[in-house]
């Protein structure tokens, strides 16, 4: 290869490098400009939101419109990026303030017709757009659109369904739980925790439907209803909870047992003991855990029989239940034929130290 070709190659690669540098600089310039524009919009949105938070509407019965410049209104109708920035700022602020300030934010949201955009997004084919719109409407307290949101509480998409269920509870508290009448998809453990958390923020009013939820075809609805019964001490549905002990689903039976640990009656220990031998180990442990709190001296013989189990966890639970009955339970534990053998001897030492504490 002669020097002529070598020079040409150098020239070619230099050109490529120069082109690359120009390309990178151009990208950086565009990104900077865009970033600057976004920063400016964010500031404008933030200022408007703050203006709304402190807008003095308290003295007026007829609410005044929050002043918004025509430039901002135009930007809002023409530019979807700015609309998104403003909506995000509004929803974020709404989550953090209450009282008149929160009312003002809702007013601004409606005044700018942002709820119409959210409702349009509910028709999107993209699940995440739908889910975000549902969340937005709930945060902005759009009770008037409950019917549109309610429709999604049994949506095939899990995340849309979850957001809709949370939204109806956020908007209507316990009354919102009526979606449990119709939901056919399972309510996951995580979603149940979220719903209970949401319900903890609102007063327990209009809390109806428990009986029918406990008879639902959807096993997760029964499980959730049992958790609700336990959390909100619904003693009046005691017999329905007892009926759940016969359910074919092991998860439902486990929840029913745990619920009876909170809502018990004179006959609860007898009922649980009658179920004991029919159950699997997991449910048996749960029964013994409940018996720890509700068993009386007349249950000592039954509990002593269970000490013969090969399962160490069950053995420990039974020993705890016996000790919790009182002196007679502890005495019975000491007189058991395996009391001096491993592992019961260790278990008894452990239980005695717990009792001493």
């Amino acid at each position, binding site marked *: 290869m002669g020097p002529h070709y070598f020079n040409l190659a150098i020239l070619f690669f230099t050109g490529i490098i120069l082109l690359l540098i120009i390309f990178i600089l151009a990208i950086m310039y565009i990104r900077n400009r865009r970033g600057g524009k976004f920063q400016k919009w964010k500031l404008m949105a933030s200022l408007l939101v*703050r203006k709304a938070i*402190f807008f003095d509407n308290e003295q007026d019965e007829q609410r005044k419109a929050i002043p918004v410049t025509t430039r901002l209104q135009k930007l809002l109708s023409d530019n979807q990026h700015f609309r998104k920035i403003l909506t995000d700022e509004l929803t974020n602020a709404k989550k953090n303030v209450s009282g008149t300030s929160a009312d003002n934010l809702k007013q601004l949201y409606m005044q700018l017709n942002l709820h119409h955009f959210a409702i349009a997004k509910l028709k999107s084919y993209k699940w995440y757009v739908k889910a975000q719109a549902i969340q937005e409407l709930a945060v902005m307290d759009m009770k008037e659109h409950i019917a549109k949101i309610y429709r999604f509480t049994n949506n095939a998409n899990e995340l849309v369904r979850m957001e809709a269920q949370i939204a109806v509870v956020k908007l209507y508290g316990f009354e919102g739980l009526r979606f449990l009448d119709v939901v056919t998809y399972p309510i996951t453990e995580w979603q149940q925790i979220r719903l209970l958390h949401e319900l903890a923020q609102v007063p327990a009013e209009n809390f109806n439907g428990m009986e029918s939820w406990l008879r639902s075809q959807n096993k997760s609805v029964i499980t959730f209803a049992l958790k609700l019964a336990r959390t909100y001490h619904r003693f009046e549905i005691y017999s329905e909870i007892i009926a759940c002990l016969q359910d074919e689903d092991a998860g439902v039976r486990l929840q029913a047992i745990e619920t009876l640990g909170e809502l018990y009656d004179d006959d609860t220990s007898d009922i649980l003991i009658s179920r004991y031998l029919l159950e699997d180990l997991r449910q048996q442990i749960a029964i013994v855990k409940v018996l720890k709190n509700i068993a009386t001296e007349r249950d000592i013989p039954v509990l002593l029989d269970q000490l013969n189990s090969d399962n160490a966890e069950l053995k420990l639970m039974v020993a705890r239940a016996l000790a919790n009955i009182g002196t007679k339970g502890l005495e019975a534990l000491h007189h058991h034929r395996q009391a001096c053998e491993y592992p019961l001897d260790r278990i008894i030492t452990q239980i005695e130290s717990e009792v001493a504490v």
Partner: protein
Amino acid sequence: MRILIAEDDDLMRKTLEFRLKRDGHQVIVTHDGREALEKIAEHLPDLVITDIMMPYSSGLEIIGAVRQNYTQKIPIIILSGMGQEDVVLEAFTLGADDYITKPFSPNELSVRVRRFAFTGAA
């Protein structure tokens, strides 16, 4: 009153700053726990308003550090989310003086701050 705000959320921080300045207070704003501790040492504020969840040092760490390192009583108000009862209890154990649950009304915050202005540590 010289008030230090420790809040990582931009909008909330600006909202608090605006409201407290309007009430005539001198406001020092910080974006995270570490900056808050530095500014507390620098300015010795009359009141600290801190969020619980923040980068670097949490609101609880701020309370602990203030109570441990300063002999003078600096009242502390914490901003907590709904359902954070355990955190609120821990904050009181560490020495917080008051708490406000989000969402909160800026008017309520203003009244609570005024209480500290009148009584020192309420």
